[in-house]
């Protein structure tokens, strides 16, 4: 019976991950994206993730309050500890030094390379959980979130490609790596969806968990990187408008369709 939805989850979340490759393409142009444009991509990705987080939170709060907040707290705690134990917190410092990131020795260090890919893999895993949980709740919402995250994957891959290019990796290889780094998204989406029977009982908590992960990832990884590359007015506008646009689209295509 659940054959079809499982296929839908797999298909949609894989398409979302493959979208990541598009983010590498602008770097093949004669004039690759500027630092400020990559900052804008981070801001766009942030806004879409915050909008998605709000949708999950709102769906959860419709059902319960305390389990949602407990779930969100667990999501924040999980993300925080995964960053601490994998050494990803160092990235915030390494890449945080703003223009001096150009230091070729530091950027080329193998350790940094593995950390960057790990960061993207963990980040995408959280998004996969969000897609899976949303699919358990309502198939339409899950598909909508997967499509929103597909657009956000393009922006995020642009950011990843910027880092990879500085390490001397070819655009085509960077495009491939962007998809590989996102592969945790469909895997975790499927895993979350497979746990649907368990999840139904824990749904408010699971919705909170996914929202907590996403909000914390935006706050610790995407937004600081965005402010380092672009000035605060375009960043603030992009984050707010992207989040608002996502809510409007959700209202038109998901909520109003019920």
């Amino acid at each position: 019976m659940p054959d079809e939805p499982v296929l839908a989850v797999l298909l949609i979340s894989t398409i979302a991950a493959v979208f990541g490759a598009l983010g590498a393409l602008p770097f093949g142009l004669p004039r690759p994206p500027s630092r400020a444009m990559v900052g804008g991509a981070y801001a766009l990705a942030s806004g879409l993730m915050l909008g998605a987080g709000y949708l999950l939170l709102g769906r959860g709060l419709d059902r319960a309050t305390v389990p949602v907040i407990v779930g969100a707290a667990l999501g924040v705690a999980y993300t925080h500890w995964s960053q601490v134990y994998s050494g990803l917190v160092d990235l915030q410092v390494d890449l945080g030094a703003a223009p001096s990131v150009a230091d070729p020795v530091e950027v080329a260090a193998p350790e940094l390379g593995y950390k960057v890919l790990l960061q993207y893999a963990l980040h995408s895993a959280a998004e996969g959980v969000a897609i899976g949980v949303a699919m358990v709740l309502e198939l339409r919402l899950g598909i909508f979130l997967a499509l929103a995250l597909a657009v956000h994957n393009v922006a995020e891959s642009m950011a990843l490609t910027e880092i990879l290019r500085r390490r001397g990796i070819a655009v085509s290889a960077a495009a491939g790596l962007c998809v590989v780094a996102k592969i945790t998204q469909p895997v975790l989406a499927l895993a979350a969806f497979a746990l649907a029977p368990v999840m139904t009982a824990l749904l408010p908590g699971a919705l909170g968990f996914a929202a907590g992960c996403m909000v914390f990832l935006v706050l610790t990884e995407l937004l600081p990187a965005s402010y380092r590359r672009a000035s605060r007015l375009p960043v603030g506008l992009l984050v707010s408008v992207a989040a608002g646009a996502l809510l409007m689209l959700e209202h038109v295509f998901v909520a109003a369709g019920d």
Partner: protein
Amino acid sequence: MLAEGILAEAGVVFLFGLLTALATGLGALPFVFASNVSPRTIAIAESIAAGLMLGASVGLLLEGARYGMPQTLAGAALGLVFIVFGRRALEGREVSLGGIRGAGARQVLLMVGVMTLHSFSEGVAVGVSFGGGKTLATLITVAIAVHNIPEGLAISAVMRPKGASIPVCAGWSIFSSLPQPLMAVPAFLFVDLFRPVLPYGLGFAAGAMVFMVFLELLPEAYAAARATTVGLAVSVSLGAMILFQRLL
């Protein structure tokens, strides 16, 4: 006879509304204990303010959605436009507020302005919900008063590190909530008139607050503290604000 009853009730709404505004001043109290203001402390205070404002916006959007999501989002867009132009109008102008001068004063003025405007919407929301058939319960008023404390905390978290005294922080916090009782009474008396405007107002408040967070509070917080510190402070205060609003 009936009209008299409604007026008396409106008087009660106003009186309770005034009390709720005074409660906002309590938000300045925690800063009595925080005497040391390192750049990191300021960043954490700004992060807490950001989390509280994001949490309040979640509440406003959820409430607005009940009256109409497109209207709420249109209001939010107006909130963005308001901040962009408000900021431009203040640019290069010499302002001082509560003993704060320069760029800090412009930011604080914008912050107090946004929180004051947001109280107009909140006041209408209170009046409409009171007038919408629900009985006027002291419990509801107490709940609103409690809601105002974190809003005072957000204002004080931005003003206090910039050098404003505790009474000044408390004073501006109370000021920012005064529109609440003023708007609650007409909204209560003329529910049908105010209800259509409500989603726009709620959206406006949410949009302006969210934009303030990403335009002013967070970039400054990241400049003075680690991303992890900012992330944890924002997440905890955001979650606490939602919990607070839903349970009290």
